[in-house]
């Protein structure tokens, strides 16, 4: 039984995101064969779409089980479609790779092993160690309420009893996404929140750091694992205050705020670095990259209502820097378009609260 539950979670957290991501990545020339990029792109797309479906569903009072059926069926179909698209696009260049190019030196191999062991250490530690945080009483209990009572944001998490729709939190329904995983897999929402989600979040975050490192160190391949090792050191010793994104990644990874600061913000840095490279070279940016930026913006909203403001600001600062670097205002149009979901969700928050 437990194996079946783990198997279902593997499908939901590995196979489906990878299938969806493959479909998106097929349209990104540089990353169409990169398995890590596919996985990250799949999650961003999945989360973005969940945000689009879930917020209206919650406001309209749809049952949680119905939302789960719609979402999971939709994602499974998208994964099939994505895989199909990827196969069609890859006919001429088959095969997946994580790192491209010739044989690795012995030192490079050792450094990759150290980097890998560092990530493994964090995954094991986050599985065997618990991080106490009072906010779990709200977020994890909301996941639990959705699974047990088939209701979303209409029951009081701390005590019980019905309430009017909690508009502030229902605009950032990350706990409901976790509840969907729990519902489909049959695993307790608290186990999914505390023992499963951290493994996914930490892996994805290092995937993003790895890709950023590869971009920054293009032509210096042997230093890439070293970048990842230093990134791990900064994260592991990043608890210099309780507010840091590194602290949130390790100790509060099941909460939407961690999704925002430790995953979405770096993911947007990765994507805008890809955009910057193209624009500064006078090339056209693939639409798939802009699509992923928009999905990341929606994901920020899924994590936290404040995420809409944070990533809006991030893109705004990027827009300013891009304008002063390229001196072309036309480059700002897609940046502004990508900010629309954040603006809409912020307006909804202001109007509904």
């Amino acid at each position, binding site marked *: 039984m437990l194996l079946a539950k783990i198997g279902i979670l593997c499908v939901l957290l590995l196979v489906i995101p990878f299938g969806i991501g493959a479909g998106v990545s097929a349209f990104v020339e540089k990353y169409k064969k990169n398995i890590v990029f596919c996985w990250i792109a799949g999650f961003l797309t999945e989360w973005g779409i969940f945000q689009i479906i879930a917020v209206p569903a919650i406001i309209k009072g749809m049952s949680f089980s119905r939302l789960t059926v719609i979402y999971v069926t939709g994602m499974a179909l998208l994964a099939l479609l994505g895989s199909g698209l990827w196969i069609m696009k890859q006919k001429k260049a088959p095969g997946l790779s994580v790192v491209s190019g010739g044989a690795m030196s012995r030192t490079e191999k050792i450094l990759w092993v150290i980097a890998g062991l560092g990530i493994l250490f964090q995954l094991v530690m986050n599985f065997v160690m618990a991080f106490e945080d009072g906010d779990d009483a709200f977020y994890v209990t909301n996941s639990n309420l959705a699974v047990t009572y088939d209701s979303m944001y209409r029951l009081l998490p701390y005590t019980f009893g019905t309430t009017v729709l909690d508009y502030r939190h229902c605009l950032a329904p990350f706990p409901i996404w976790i509840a969907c995983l729990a519902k489909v897999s049959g695993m307790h929402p608290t186990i999914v929140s505390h023992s499963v989600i951290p493994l996914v979040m930490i892996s994805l975050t290092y995937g993003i750091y790895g890709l950023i490192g590869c971009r*920054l160190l293009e032509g210096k391949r042997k230093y890439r694992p070293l970048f990842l090792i230093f990134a791990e050191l900064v994260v592991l010793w990043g608890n210099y205050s309780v507010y840091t994104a590194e602290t949130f990644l390790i100790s509060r990874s099941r909460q939407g705020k961690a999704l925002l600061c430790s995953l979405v913000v770096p993911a947007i840095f990765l994507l805008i670095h890809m955009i910057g490279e193209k624009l500064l070279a006078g090339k056209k940016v693939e639409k798939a990259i802009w699509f992923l930026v928009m999905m990341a913006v929606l994901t920020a909203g899924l994590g936290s209502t404040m995420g809409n403001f944070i990533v809006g600001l991030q893109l705004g600062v990027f827009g300013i820097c891009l304008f002063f670097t390229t001196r072309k205002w036309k480059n700002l149009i897609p940046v502004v378009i990508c900010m629309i979901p954040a603006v809409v969700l912020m307006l909804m928050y202001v109007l509904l609260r």
Partner: protein
Amino acid sequence: MLDSITRFAGYCGKGMMVALFLVALIYLFFQEKNKNHRMIFLYMPVVTLLLYFCPLVSKLVYSFIGEDLYWRFLWLLPIVVVIAYTAVKIISTLQGKKQIVAGISLGLIVILSGSFIYRSEHAFYAGNPYHLPQCVVDICEEIEPEEGKVRAAFPIELLPYVRQYSVRIEMPYGREYILLDWARRSELFYALDAETLDVERVAELARQDECDYLVFWKGKILNGDFMDYGFETVDIVGDYMIVRDVMEKK
């Protein structure tokens, strides 16, 4: 401006990691030649910091998200990437054994500038996959019904965990008692929190709050017997005693 500085200092905390990040930005300003790298990982953090400390911006942001959350602005600083990249960039300029010495030294600087996350006061070894105190799991399993729900009063230290395990357990008061400074907490809370339990009063208040169960520290002094007031002892789980209201069942 002063508020922004105070919050920035709060974010920087007890380590030197943010200082290291600022030093790394200065290094990149002089050493980084790639236009795109400069735009994303040098200009963007600098503009973000300028906006953060700009009084007009902070006033505007305060009105939208409130002063208490202004520090979240600082999540936009790519601290991990900038420090890691700068360290690697320094190492890559060296040759042979100097690279190893520089690598170890820079690693030590990072370690000494921060605080190890797994030594946090909030971290402890999880006794179960729920990552909840084992006594909460055991107590909940004891009182949780298969169908429907029960109502139980718990001591303050268990309030955040109970409904993470089971939402079939209602509580007369919950984590809001820890989160907010409640001027008037319920009488049952105070009665159950007292060092010596006034059993008659606790039983009366529990019934008023429609509690099926009461959970309290087993070391508390009782000035009577719960059985005399229609309660029975269910079990002692870990450090806690569970009693049940059996009045209607009699």
